[in-house]
């Protein structure tokens, strides 16, 4: 789970795109998923997600994402088919419309989750922030806040795992098979987790100040983020995806 957020280096087509284009691509896929009401188109979009993963050289990651989402999806799917009453009954209390609706919901969930995670996996957060500052003229402070928050997610998870490990060694039964019990025991541990993160935030702020944070502005970045022809192509793909969703 934690290496999902980790950066994968490479020189694929996707890596060559401007960081903003990559995000746009992800957003476009999400948008298309929610606009479209056609089951086949949704399946196509899911395939497009996988294609993105393949193009970016992180197909394995895309697959493991899909696998992870599958569990939630199955749960959602079952809920949906049990609660939708419209349509013709197919089997027991399950209706044909219920099946279709459930499939759509689940597909949308998967389609929407995968591309953003994939794009983040092939984009260094600092690149994204710098591009936002330089190209989109977002104030550096805000960009910094967001990137730092994202940057700390894996560390947060690692810390939680470490804390649980330490408490297990002290005799708290985190190594039980009972999931509910485990969650109950996790709650009190949020205290040390919060304390360490607040402390780290303080330290990070002090460190940033000490390194001249206040002096930074839009022109401080040393990498430039120009747009190329492949960005144009990607934007066209985005437009086509959304157009397709509206039309079909």
């Amino acid at each position, binding site marked *: 789970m934690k290496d999902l957020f980790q950066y994968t280096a490479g020189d694929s087509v996707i890596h060559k795109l401007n960081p903003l284009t990559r995000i746009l691509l992800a957003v476009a896929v999400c948008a298309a998923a929610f606009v479209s009401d056609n089951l086949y188109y949704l399946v196509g979009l899911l395939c497009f997600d996988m294609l993105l993963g393949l193009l970016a050289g992180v197909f394995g990651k895309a697959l493991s994402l899909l696998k992870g989402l599958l569990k939630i999806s199955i749960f959602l799917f079952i809920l949906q088919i049990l609660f939708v009453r419209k349509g013709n009954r197919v089997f027991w209390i399950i209706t044909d419309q219920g099946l279709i609706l459930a499939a759509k919901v689940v597909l949308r969930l998967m389609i929407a989750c995968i591309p953003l995670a994939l794009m983040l996996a092939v984009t260094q957060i600092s690149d994204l922030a710098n591009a936002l500052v330089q190209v989109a003229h977002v104030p550096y402070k805000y960009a910094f806040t967001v990137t730092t928050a994202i940057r700390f997610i894996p560390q947060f998870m690692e810390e939680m795992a470490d804390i649980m490990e*330490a408490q297990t060694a002290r005799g708290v039964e985190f190594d039980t098979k009972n999931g509910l019990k485990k969650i109950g025991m996790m709650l*009190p541990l949020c205290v040390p987790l919060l304390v360490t993160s607040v*402390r780290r935030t303080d330290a990070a702020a002090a460190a940033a100040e000490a390194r001249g944070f206040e002096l930074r502005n839009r022109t401080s970045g040393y990498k430039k983020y120009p747009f190329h022809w492949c960005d144009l192509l990607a934007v066209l793909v985005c437009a086509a995806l959304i157009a397709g969703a509206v039309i079909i």
Partner: protein
Amino acid sequence: MILLENVSFGYGDDSSTVRDISFHIERGEFAAILGANGAGKTTTAKLIDGLLKPTKGRVLINGLDTAKTRVSERARHVGYLFQNPDRQICKNTVREEIAFGLTAVWQNAGEDAIARRVDEVLESFGFSGDEEPFSLSRGERQRVALASVIAIRPEIMILDEPTTGLDYRECTHIMDTIKTMNEEQKTTVVMVCHDMEVVASYATRALVMAGGHLLGDGPVKTIFRDQELLKRASLLPPQIVELALRLGPGFENADTVEEMTEAVSARAKRKGAGV
């Protein structure tokens, strides 16, 4: 008591952080794991407590395979001090913190017994009990974490760098406490430590690691005199040992300041007697 048989371990799937390590530690031993940063000391310590399961080989604690038993059940017998005290601390006062570990493992003891034990430990460590762990300094938090490990009187104590961040007086005090437990209750101690002076004064056995391999295993005295071995593990012996080695015959066995003083006064006496 602790037995590692051809244990290998790697984080993820490829790298092997610990490679084919075997050793045996008897009850009442005081062993130190030495090695440069990243040598795999913490990993080995976690393997001993079963927090990590070996990918090859096996680890036996009191004859039980760690891969088949639960860590939380072992907590009664094995105390583990983590390299980072903040992972361990989770209560709002030092008293609660120490009591927390005790209630988890001393399930049959009454509340009185636990309260008494907490007071004892608080006094020994010089805490009032009402301090908030998270507003203490790093060294003080280290002591809180150590206090809660010592409180449960485990049969085996695994200490990952117990003395980092402590001042000299505090370091001596804590190491003396550990040594007393080791001598009086035959507590087995496995300690990861970068302070060679501390190792020379307290440990009896040294395990030297480098790059995931176990390079050397033997009495601290012997290990510290094996210059070639220490060099391969990027370690330096304590200065007093170096001095002893340079002084030559009559001083070879001096590992600590006390032993050196003795050796020097013995030499002076012999000189005085005209030998």
